[in-house]
């Protein structure tokens, strides 16, 4: 009886760990930059700012509470600094350069210069964005091909 219980519990643990392990590898084994790209697109690619509220839960699920408070549309200071540059216009994110923890992108909308460059730096811990820093690249623009060089 004990042997059966021990073996059953162990087998359940093995199966659960195998599934979680496969999920973890799949989650992180896509391009290193996919997580950051996904977040940048969630934040800044939309047809109108009305869509942002609908993504609130998804964004919150990907961030620690501190980062979510920083990026949340309810953060008026962040909203003005980021969405204020785009406005309520259809916006597309153009990824220009990526490295682990770093996304350089441009915004294509009616009110932005598509050659302006923005930086999204991030760290991930326990599967959540634990640190995010956002910058504008001042003093440079994309090259004629939309790239960095």
């Amino acid at each position, binding site marked *: 009886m004990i042997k059966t219980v021990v073996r059953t*519990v162990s087998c359940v643990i093995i199966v659960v760990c195998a599934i979680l392990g496969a999920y973890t590898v799949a989650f992180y084994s896509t391009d290193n930059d996919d997580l950051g790209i996904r977040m940048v697109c969630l934040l800044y690619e939309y047809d109108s700012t009305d869509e942002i509220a609908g993504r609130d839960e998804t964004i919150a699920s990907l961030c620690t509470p501190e980062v979510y408070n920083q990026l949340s549309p309810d953060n008026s200071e962040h909203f003005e*600094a980021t969405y204020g540059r785009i406005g309520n216009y259809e916006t597309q994110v153009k990824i220009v350069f990526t490295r682990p923890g770093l996304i350089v992108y441009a915004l294509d909308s009616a009110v932005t210069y598509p050659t302006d460059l923005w930086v999204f730096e991030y760290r991930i811990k326990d599967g959540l964005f634990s640190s995010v820093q956002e910058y504008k690249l001042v003093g440079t623009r994309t090259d004629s091909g939309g790239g960095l060089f």
Partner: protein
Amino acid sequence: MDKVKKALDPITCIVVLAAVLLYVLLFYTRSLQEARVTRATEPNPVVTAFLTDYLASDTDYQREAVVEQYFLVSSDSIDRDGFSETFYKVNAVFQPATEKPESFRVCASQRNYLEIMPLDSKGADLPCRVAIFYRITDNGKISSYNIARLQPVSKRDPEWRRNWL
């Protein structure tokens, strides 16, 4: 006691051990993958050497000489005063009217990317940070590059500076 002994037969022990090992491996794998996502690389020595020499230069002619030493500079890009387009671009980032950086510290480093904080003569930060994107030729010259200041999006960020609007 006999029941416990019977429960711990070799097969059961192996199964339990496998469960424990997989459990440990799961968390190890996760930490490895997370580290890989945000892994930094060593700063490129060509770029750091350029920055060191450039910031140590006292005159524009010295800075131009440093630029030509480390960058692939086309002679077509040199103007009548003897300064290259690269010199002007780098100068615009590092030589604002108000602050003259004399050294730097590395903030982040990835392949083809270096992020630094310029420092004054006393070692104090001179925000905003500088982002340098580069490609290096096989013979150690910077062939392609982009350089800019990183102005925080948030005005409340302590590194936000009005002069880098």
